[in-house]
């Protein structure tokens, strides 16, 4: 069944990076865990559903399963993973030049901190829209909710982030002016 595996490989190559990113944003920056969960999702797909899903459904299936894995992780102890990830982060050898490393980290941290203020369903819907460019209908299939809920969730997420972002910018301007 070479073609069977070839198709799976293509799907993996195409969506593994974005699934990792989606999970990392969802999990508040726990990159190691995000990669583990992305692999678990693909493994689950290969074991159980691959070949039985209608064409184009595999992607939605993956995101649905990945999101469920992430929710399970939320339910576990947060502290343990945070601490562990911090230890890993602290011990990771620097790979780029310090400035670039710093900027990347800052940018990541800002996005993550903003996203972490959102309720989980709004965060998932927004990430699927912005990062994965899924349509509202696709998102509703992934999350198994109505399109109108997706529409509302995405708008609320944007409005909340915009408000926080404006407040933050004003604060920064105030500090600089002061």
């Amino acid at each position, binding site marked *: 069944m070479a073609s069977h*595996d070839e198709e*799976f*490989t293509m799907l*993996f*190559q195409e969506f*593994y*990076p*974005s699934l*990792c*990113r989606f999970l*990392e*944003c969802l999990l508040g920056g726990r*990159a*190691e865990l995000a*990669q*583990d969960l*992305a*692999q*678990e999702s*693909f*493994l689950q797909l*290969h*074991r159980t559903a691959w070949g039985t899903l209608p064409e184009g459904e595999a992607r939605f299936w993956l995101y649905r399963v990945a999101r469920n894995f992430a929710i399970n992780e939320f339910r576990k102890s947060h502290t343990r993973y945070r601490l562990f990830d911090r230890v*890993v982060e602290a*011990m*990771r*050898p620097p790979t780029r030049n310090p400035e670039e490393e710093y900027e*990347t980290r800052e*940018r*990541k941290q*800002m*996005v993550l901190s903003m*996203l972490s203020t959102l309720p989980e369903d709004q965060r998932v819907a*927004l*990430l699927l*829209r*912005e*990062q994965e460019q899924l*349509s*509202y209908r696709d998102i509703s299939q992934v999350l198994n909710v109505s399109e109108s809920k997706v*529409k509302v969730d*995405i*708008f609320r997420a*944007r*409005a909340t*982030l*915009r408000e926080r*972002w*404006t407040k933050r910018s004003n604060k920064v301007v105030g500090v600089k002016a002061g």
Partner: protein
Amino acid sequence: MNCDCTEKISLLIDGELSPAEARELERHLVTCVECQEARADFLSLRSQINEFPVAFKPVAQRDALERILGKEKAAGRGRNWRWLLNPALAAFASLLILGAVIGLLIYPRLKPVHTPADFVASDSGKKPGAMPQPSRSPEQSSKGAGQSGAPQKGSQPPAGTNRTKVPNKKPAPVVIEPPQDNIARNQEPAGPVRSADAETMTAIHFQKSELLLRSFRNVRLNKTGSSPELGYEKKLAQQLVYQNMVLRREADAAGDAQVSSLLDSLEPILLDIANLPEKARQGDVRAIKDRVERKNIVALLQVNSLALARALD
């Protein structure tokens, strides 16, 4: 700043409005500054979320795919072992292992040095069933001294040895005297001896083996011929086989023939249980059970473990 169109802006940038609605909103945008700002902010947020970098190496992706496709079992375990690939964590783990090795090297030096008191003073006290070595009665002891002078008739033995008092005419009886104090223990052992640690290990080993064989003896053989459930027994036997070999060699080296012989009898049985196939045939199980019964090994193990335990008390 309360234009009702903000929600529609969200739909517009997502392409979720009909062409007619989109055109209408575009016209509104020309005049409404608030909506223009909302659209700019929403698009700015989008670019920030979209630019979130993905932090992993292509090699890791390829490895992950290989695990999923080729070695699903390995992929299942991969989550537990993948951290080993992380150089920082691998270094941390190496440090821990190094620390443990150093600790193991230093620990024996910190332990108190074994004095002869830690060793068995005489075989009679430790070896169950071995022929006890008679100790000399006071009378006999005095004979040695008496070579220079005759023993005094009717002289009383020292206090505390009354139970050994016998008429002088009769030959001195055999008296088994366990070591009374440290002085007795500090006597130079006559032959090769085994350390108390080894004997403790042997006693525990006998107890575990006894439990295993009892459990194995109680395995039910169905009339239907289906293979019995032996997972626990197999696992335990696998653990005990190695220890059995080590203890047997130690017993051989120490000249403890009885313990060595018992361990020697036990070893093939442990090996047979450990090597039983997943779906063992009832005939094989029955053959081992018969051998255990024939050799009466459970009772021997019980007796020896109790004797050793008592001797160690």
